[in-house]
């Protein structure tokens, strides 16, 4: 297998506000977009000819991935103008593929080991994995190593083996894509016509992201395996424990206390007296002022956090300016997404470019849209649409 098609066109509506300006594949986990993990896994397995099917907010993918040279791969971009499903997306790539190729979702976190054996498999084949909550996925029935059928999001699962969305195909697949909009429908159709599809199981990392707080669990999973690397300036009196990575030109000022796993990007200014606890990712160009305490959170680029803030189990998107004494404590919260209620333990989810005055308190589970402005001394709860003004 020398070629791979990555499906990277999807929006990820349930991940709003984080997917208003970027596609789901560009959500940042431990300092890198999800798509980059997929591309790097392929490169590590010797697959360097990559076809990226892009659509929604594709400029963000172009800007980051470029020609792929930086990641040791060659990228060909194919545009899916309207997001009509995974089979439709794959069909767009027909002219760019030859012989045998892998198909992977760009929005699942896939590590090199996960696909290590799969790259040598004979098509047509599907990679499956045992999971705890199979009803979220396509549940696969397997007999003697062969796929029997795929049932999407069943009410009751017959097994806990699910489709990872990672396939090995030959160009034959294109003759089966007709009206079907998703790949599992195409495969069920092939099975009905007696075409064999083999199944291979993996124990490697394969993590899906559906809701905003999933960013935290993915971040936690990835951070456990980071390489420590200390760039920038670490002033005297700073304590660093566990796996900590600090980017170049970053300053960590005296008496800061950092317990890994923690990743801090380039050109940040942190401290003095800042406490960062596991598992936290901090992007580039971030300022965290004295006496702030950040725990198990994802802080994106160009963010300024004022003094004495408490930030727990939270996701803060790029460009937010947060003044002093912001409190986002974590607790169990009932969060509504698409009319579904979820009981989760989270702090705050902040969209990009928000501006928060002094002493704002976020109730657990609040989801703040992009570019919201909040005056001092306000209590935030529930869900705030983009560009809300809280006066």
């Amino acid at each position, binding site marked *: 297998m020398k070629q791979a098609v990555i499906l990277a066109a999807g929006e990820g509506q349930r991940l709003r506000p984080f997917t208003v*300006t970027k596609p789901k594949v560009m959500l940042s986990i431990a300092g890198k977009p999800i798509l980059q993990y997929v591309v790097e896994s392929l490169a590590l397995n010797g697959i360097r000819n990559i076809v990226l099917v892009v659509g929604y907010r594709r400029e963000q993918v*172009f800007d980051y991935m*470029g020609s792929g040279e930086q990641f040791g791969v060659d*990228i060909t971009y194919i545009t899916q103008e309207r997001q009509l499903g995974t089979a439709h997306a794959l069909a767009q790539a027909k002219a760019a593929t030859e012989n045998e190729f892998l198909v992977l979702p760009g929005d699942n976190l896939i590590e090199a080991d996960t696909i290590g054996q799969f790259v040598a498999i004979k098509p047509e084949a599907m990679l499956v994995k045992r999971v705890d909550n199979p009803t979220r996925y396509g549940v696969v029935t397997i007999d003697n190593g062969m796929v029997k059928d795929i049932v999407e999001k069943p009410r009751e699962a017959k097994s806990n083996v699910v489709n990872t969305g990672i396939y090995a195909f030959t160009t034959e697949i294109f003759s089966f894509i007709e009206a079907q909009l998703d790949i599992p429908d195409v495969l069920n159709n092939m099975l009905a016509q007696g075409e064999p599809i083999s199944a291979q199981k993996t124990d490697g990392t394969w993590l899906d992201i559906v809701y905003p707080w999933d960013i935290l669990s993915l971040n936690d999973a990835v951070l456990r395996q980071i390489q420590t690397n200390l760039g920038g300036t670490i002033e005297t009196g700073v304590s660093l424990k566990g796996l900590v990575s600090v980017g170049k*030109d970053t300053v960590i000022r005296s008496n800061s206390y950092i317990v890994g796993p923690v990743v801090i990007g380039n050109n940040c200014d942190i401290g003095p007296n800042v406490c960062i606890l596991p598992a936290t990712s901090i992007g*580039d*160009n971030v*300022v965290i002022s004295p006496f702030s305490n950040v725990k198990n959170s994802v802080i994106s680029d160009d963010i*300024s956090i004022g003094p004495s803030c408490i930030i727990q189990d939270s996701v803060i998107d790029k460009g937010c300016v947060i003044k002093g004494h912001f409190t986002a404590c974590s607790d169990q919260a009932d969060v509504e997404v698409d009319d579904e209620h979820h009981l989760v333990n989270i702090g705050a989810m902040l969209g990009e470019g928000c501006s928060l005055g002094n002493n704002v308190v976020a109730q657990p589970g609040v989801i703040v849209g992009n570019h919201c402005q909040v005056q001092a001394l306000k209590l935030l709860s529930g869900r705030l649409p983009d560009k809300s003004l809280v006066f």
Partner: protein
Amino acid sequence: MCGIVDYIGDKQAQPILLSSLSRLEYRGYDSCGIAVSSSPPRRIEAYKDAVRVEALAKMVPQLGGTAGIGHTRWATCGEPSQVNAHPHCDCAGNIAVVHNGVINNFQRLRQQLTSEGHNFVSETDTEVIPHLIEKYYDGNLEKAVEAALRDVEGSYAIVVLMAGEPKLVAAKKDSPLIIGIGDRENFIASDVPAILDYTNRVIYLEEGDIGVVTKDNIKIKRDGTEVSRKEHKILWSIEEAQKGGYEHFMLKEIHEQPKVIRDTLGEYTSSAEPVVDLARIRDEGIESMLILACGTSYYAALVGKYIVEELLRIPVRVEIASEFSYYGQTLARTGAIVITQSGETADTLKAVKRLKEVGCRVVAITNVVGSSASRIADQTIYTRAGPEISVAATKSFTAQLMVLYWLAMGYSKADARRLATMLLGLRQLPSKVQQVLDNEAIILEHAKYLSKYENVFFIGRGINFPVALEGALKLKEISYIHAEGYAAGELKHGPFALLGENTPVIAIVAQDNTYEVMLTNIKEVKARKSPLIALAEEGDEAIGELADFVITVPRVDALFSPVVNTVALQLLAYYTAKERGCPIDFPRNLAKSVTVE
């Protein structure tokens, strides 16, 4: 202004020359050609025409040979045509030359050579060079080139290929030329992107150098004695010179701006030692500052005037470099800054030489490491924009502004509190610019509207006056719509006569001390029935009632408003040109770096 690329090694020269030439088209593209030296038989085979490189590649037959020269032209002397395209040959067709620059005394040389029996076929100045070399050749090509150049007055980067001589001879004076070092092969080119596919090891030739390049040896001489020149490693990758998913380099480069700002910030804020301490310049008794530039860089310089005057409280004079030669009295006690993206802008270089003669200390701001500007200035600050391929400058403008902010802020004795809020503003800037890019769908709608008009005015005040000039320049150069940038208060001194329902006005409305009077200007324009598009900060409600259309940009410190406003206007120009079907990356009659006066 032209592009040169040459190869000598073990491989076939033709495909390498053609692919490298296509990377140099930003330097000019009205005609192109290649010549290859074959052996045996020992002869030169040349092929050229007034077409783009892509078309030439389809027309040219296979020319066998492992040494060759190539050229892409932007006509200065002689119209674009097949005979005027380079390479040019001598009478016997044994010597082929590619040239970038201008030979001032070519008329006299040509008459003389004609009277000596040489036969000229083109109208170019270049053609005298192969004939001069032919005249002086007595078995040593290098000596013949040296002798020929002694007769020549003007600027040149030339490369000479001769049948039966397994080498390339290069010479440089006032036009750029580099040598690329490969493994059992070497390259010569006008600029680095041409050869980045093959090597990233580069030697920059200095003024007056003559290089003799064979496939495994590079010898550089100056005034007859051999000299050594340092090898540079180019850190940008070829990927940065490709389009990466975008339809045009211009859009790709517009989208790179958040990254350029972020990279620049890290680079400058972290360096412990300032390259140039403007505050020290002031302390040394320099009472004023002079900034010189051309084109878009000139508008960056005009913004720089506001930045430096605001933060350092010293008067700043900004001059167009191409006019500076004709007046521009300057004292030695003036701090001088020149801004040139390519570092090769002929007018700017000429001005630098003049400033140095007066005794000024000259700081160059340029995007190209090792460029001519960096070699003649006292100090050089590099912008971190990476290679800019689109003829219309975008990210280099933003990178120039970043340098100017950094120069004025980092080392000024401005109020520490003011600096702290400004630094915070700078850190936010990449996200603010990204926000402008994320809203490009709205700008596209306005572009569709604008594309139907043939005349447009851009107005601004204060620090956004230069932005109006830059917005108009972007629009006119790529969409071919006649656009004029004006200081808003100046419209009533004449241009009012041109306003009306067929002349839209784009007003840049900043939230600073110009706001109130700008609203008055807008009312004046509306009274003349011109459609009005306002570029205004988010949250500005008053403007919605006055303007026909509003493009909102994120709120930033007034000093940084030129950055977000310019990015919005770049997008407006891009989508307007696209709507009109213009060849955006290579607008007619324009070339990327202007290396002639």
